[in-house]
């Protein structure tokens, strides 16, 4: 009789996990598809205010420091402006006025570059121009960057970063250095991507003084004249 007791059936305590794994996989797939890992970046911009006082201040910009960039593009029949297609115009100094306007046809200060595709278009050329104009600042920043990479300001990474950022800002706003003032304008047909990429160039080249402005009659006249010249060639 005692023997039957020891023959008690042993239960298998293992549970089949397969359905649980299935369910988990399903949930993982759901979460993977529904999440956004990459957050968008932002570009801070400040437009000049509409008040007249600032207009006068704008005019005080030294002639040698000003650089005007005008972005133009093409809008297709769907109402979209293709970011691979477009033209960039630029000229140095203040816009021509008075007597200069009469001689615009013969002495047009404006130059143009085609945007084209990503490689070898206007952007590398613009970067080159801006870097040249902002040479004093860019060179100082590059020296500073080297110190930053070597952790010269502090051994603490966070402190090193903050010292670097503060010093870089100081250099960018240093009025003793020769710094350009870039005026960015865009025609209604220009694509938004171009405007952003030009604003981006300001950051890349450490330009602290730039503004977005509206295109005016003199600008359009110069563009039309330049296009006319190119047609003749």
């Amino acid at each position, binding site marked *: 009789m005692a023997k039957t007791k020891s023959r008690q059936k042993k239960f298998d305590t293992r549970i089949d996990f397969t359905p649980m794994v299935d369910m988990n996989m399903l*949930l993982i797939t759901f979460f993977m598809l*529904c*999440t956004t890992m990459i957050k968008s970046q*932002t570009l801070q911009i400040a437009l000049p205010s509409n008040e007249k006082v600032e207009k006068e201040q704008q005019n005080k910009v030294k002639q040698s420091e000003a650089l005007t960039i005008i972005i133009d*593009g093409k809008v297709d029949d769907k109402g979209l402006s293709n970011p691979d297609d477009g033209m960039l115009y630029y000229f140095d100094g203040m816009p021509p006025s008075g007597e200069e306007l009469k001689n615009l046809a013969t002495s047009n200060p404006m130059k143009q570059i085609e945007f084209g595709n990503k490689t070898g278009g206007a952007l590398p050329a613009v970067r080159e121009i801006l870097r040249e104009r902002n040479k004093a600042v860019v060179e100082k920043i590059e020296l500073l960057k080297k110190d930053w990479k070597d952790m010269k300001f502090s051994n603490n990474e966070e402190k090193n970063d903050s010292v670097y950022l503060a010093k870089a800002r100081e250099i960018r706003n240093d009025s003793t250095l020769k710094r350009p003032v870039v005026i960015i304008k865009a025609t*209604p*047909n220009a694509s938004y991507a171009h405007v*952003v990429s030009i604003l981006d160039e300001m950051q890349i080249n450490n330009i602290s003084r730039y503004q977005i402005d509206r295109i005016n009659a003199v600008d359009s006249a110069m563009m039309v004249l330049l296009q006319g010249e190119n047609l003749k060639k």
Partner: protein
Amino acid sequence: MGKVKIKKKDTRIDMTAMSDVTVLLLTFFMLTSTFLQKEPVTVITPPSVSEEKVPDANLVSVLLSPEGRVFLAVTGSKDSTMKSETVRADLLKNMASLYNAAHPSNPVKFNNKQVETFSKMNAFGVPMNQMAKWLDMPTDERDKALEKAGIPINMNEDPNNLNEFQMWIRAAYNSVNPELQESMVKGRGIAIKADQTTPYSVASMVMDNLQTMKMNKFSLMTALKSEEE
């Protein structure tokens, strides 16, 4: 002479380890995820090297389609002091009073249910006179209607006679959430999200509208581009 017994092999694999891994992954995704917000138009933002992240709280984002249709999305504060729902409900009330002051002959009114529906909407963008009707629609119809709609906007340089888009921004500025107002002043509270193929005429209209209201600082949403050097 017994038969040779072939040992039966157990074909079951122990799934415990696998289940451990999947649960771990699941936990990771659940904790890190921020859900994709449903947006009335899909836009591809232009690339830039800027590394500043979009703030996820106290933000009015202006979604701009290439044709010039405008949608808004408003979020509340990070902690639960000012939930998005509270801010949005207040926004609608503010907006209604601004709109009614400008259109006294044709006032709009919302019942509690409509306000509640609105407070749960991520993005919105229908003209104010259709808003009540839109909020009464069932969810799927509402999404469909939104795809064709947009907040009315025009070139307006008169700060005393705001258009509907400007009224919304003003309403958001005056909302119950002081943090939102602060970040809007600093320029981090308004973000424009536009497609890269948007013609500048469309983008500048929104910028000019903000400029008219003396909100000269705002941010543009971009996608990350690595700087090639």
